[in-house]
């Protein structure tokens, strides 16, 4: 295969998902002339992930819709796609060149290297974790396996009340399954949204019939014998309560007051409890790693030549005006795209700082959540709510300036905040009068931006 490849590729991109694909595309748009190798460990053409837990799972879009670019596009743009090769070792020279060695023994020499290696699903380590039917949803193979099982299942337990868990649970419920969602914490979407949005989602999902149990402690996955002698999951043993929604300290060991352990039947257990950035290659190369591959504002890793992009990268907060020195790792399509553009400039020898307004979306049942900006460090919130039209937004402020918004079925609010942040405008809420205007759903937010 590539082992006898005498001429090294100009750029080897390890990881053929959103950020790797975007990096190749952006480099060609900027006039990068060297050959590019886009290398993925999966045996699929590069594809988009977000629909795997949503439209694709429900059968609303087919496999082909997920493919990023036609094969002709890559040929015409002098990009070689390599599938099904897992890189296990990188030998790099100080000038940025080197060789990547795959598990198969194939070698991929390069002049420059980009790590777009993403993140993997965090595993839940309890008894029965290796039973058949316990699945994760991170890539296409996970999604194909889940979809193949879903037909025969009547009862599904989803563990984790974050975006993936809620999206998948909503999709599976729509497909007619009995779904119970178990969340360890005292509220939904713990890390990504504020309290008011979390409560809104809890009410909205429960009123749509989704069975959600907060403060859930999983003690084990219960096995059942199958025909072929293997073991498949038949249920989840769980204790609920102890750390109630009101009890702030819902840490480990406080669940003693909870209800007696119960076994919830499940032929499928889908676990969505977050991801871990893939930093092994970077560590092996001696790059700085701290909750992701540490990069500067130009997407350059600590060796000064390797770029690292997307979910795997820990970078300076790109929001203009954010506290100096604040670092962040973002898991989103928008970040994969924008970060890849900055990395492309870096590889062209140009120094463009990454500055942007992060945004996120999540579709759950008929709830369209759009988040603009980053709400961390907020000291004030204003809720806009129009129950008649099913719209709900929360605006976040820090020291009197708007920094973010969570918007549910409210694209106008989302757009208004995203545009205001991009233009460095404020949507003031520092007086009672101003806050009342922001909270009034009859007032268009756009008209309040100054």
């Amino acid at each position, binding site marked *: 295969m590539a082992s006898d490849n005498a001429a090294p590729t100009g750029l080897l991109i390890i990881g053929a998902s959103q950020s790797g694909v975007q990096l190749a595309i952006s480099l060609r748009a900027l006039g990068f002339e060297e050959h590019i190798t886009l290398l993925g460990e999966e045996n699929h053409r590069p594809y988009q992930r977000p629909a795997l837990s*949503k439209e694709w799972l429900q059968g609303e*879009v087919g496999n082909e819709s997920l493919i990023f670019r036609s094969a002709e596009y890559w040929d015409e743009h002098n990009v070689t796609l390599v599938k099904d090769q897992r890189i296990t070792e990188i030998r790099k020279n100080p000038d940025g060149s080197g060789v990547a060695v795959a598990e198969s023994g194939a070698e991929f020499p390069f002049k420059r290297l980009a790590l777009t290696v993403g993140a993997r699903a965090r595993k839940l380590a309890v008894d029965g974790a290796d039973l058949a039917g316990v699945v994760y949803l991170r890539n296409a193979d996970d999604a194909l396996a889940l979809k193949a099982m879903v037909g025969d299942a009547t009862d599904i337990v989803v563990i984790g009340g974050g975006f993936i868990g809620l999206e998948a649970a909503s999709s599976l419920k729509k497909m007619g399954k009995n779904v119970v969602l178990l969340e360890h914490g005292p509220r939904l979407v713990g890390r990504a949204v504020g309290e008011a949005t979390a409560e809104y989602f809890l009410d909205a999902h429960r009123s749509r019939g989704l069975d959600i149990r907060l403060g859930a402690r999983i003690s084990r996955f219960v096995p059942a014998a199958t025909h072929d002698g293997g073991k498949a999951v038949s249920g989840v043993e769980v204790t609920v309560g102890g750390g109630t929604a009101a009890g702030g300290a819902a840490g480990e060991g406080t669940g003693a007051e909870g209800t007696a352990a119960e076994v919830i039947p499940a032929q499928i257990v889908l676990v969505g409890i977050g991801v871990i950035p893939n930093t092994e290659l970077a560590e092996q190369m001696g790059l700085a790693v701290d909750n992701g591959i540490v990069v500067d504002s130009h997407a350059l890793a600590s060796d000064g030549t390797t770029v690292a992009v997307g979910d795997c990268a820990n970078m300076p907060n790109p929001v203009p005006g954010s506290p100096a020195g604040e670092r962040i790792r973002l898991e989103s*399509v928008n970040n994969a795209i924008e970060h890849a553009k900055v990395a492309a400039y870096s590889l062209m020898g140009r120094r463009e700082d990454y500055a942007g307004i992060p945004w996120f979306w999540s*579709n759950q049942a008929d709830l*369209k959540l*759009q988040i603009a900006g980053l709400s961390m460090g907020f000291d004030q919130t204003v809720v806009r709510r129009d129950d008649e039209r099913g719209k709900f937004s929360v605006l976040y402020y820090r020291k009197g300036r708007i920094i973010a918004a969570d918007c549910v079925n409210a694209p106008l609010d989302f*757009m208004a905040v995203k545009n205001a942040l991009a233009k460095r405008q404020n949507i003031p809420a520092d007086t009672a009068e101003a806050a009342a205007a922001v909270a009034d759903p009859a007032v268009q937010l*756009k008209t309040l931006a100054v």
Partner: protein
Amino acid sequence: MTTTVHYTDAEGTVRDIEGRPGDSVMETAVRNGVPGIVAECGGSLSCATCHVFVRDDCLSELPPIEPMEDEMLYGTAVDREENSRLSCQLKLTEGMDLYVTTPETQV
């Protein structure tokens, strides 16, 4: 009967792409690398970065605007016009011959 989308960019360059019935105008553009359509959200009506202007005589061939698309169109990078649509919501039908122009920027 061929199905074709004619994409004109802001500079006036025209790209004629043969499409597959059932695909959207956005998907057809992205898969073939037509510049001017970003489509960050992959067609789930979340980002408004696949905005196009539809040639007036083609408008009647298209499905009507749903409320969510209508709201999203108010947030496009280049202001909407009477003939604005989000191309992820425009599905190609057999034999369709559609002319669209992409805006100067999508973000």
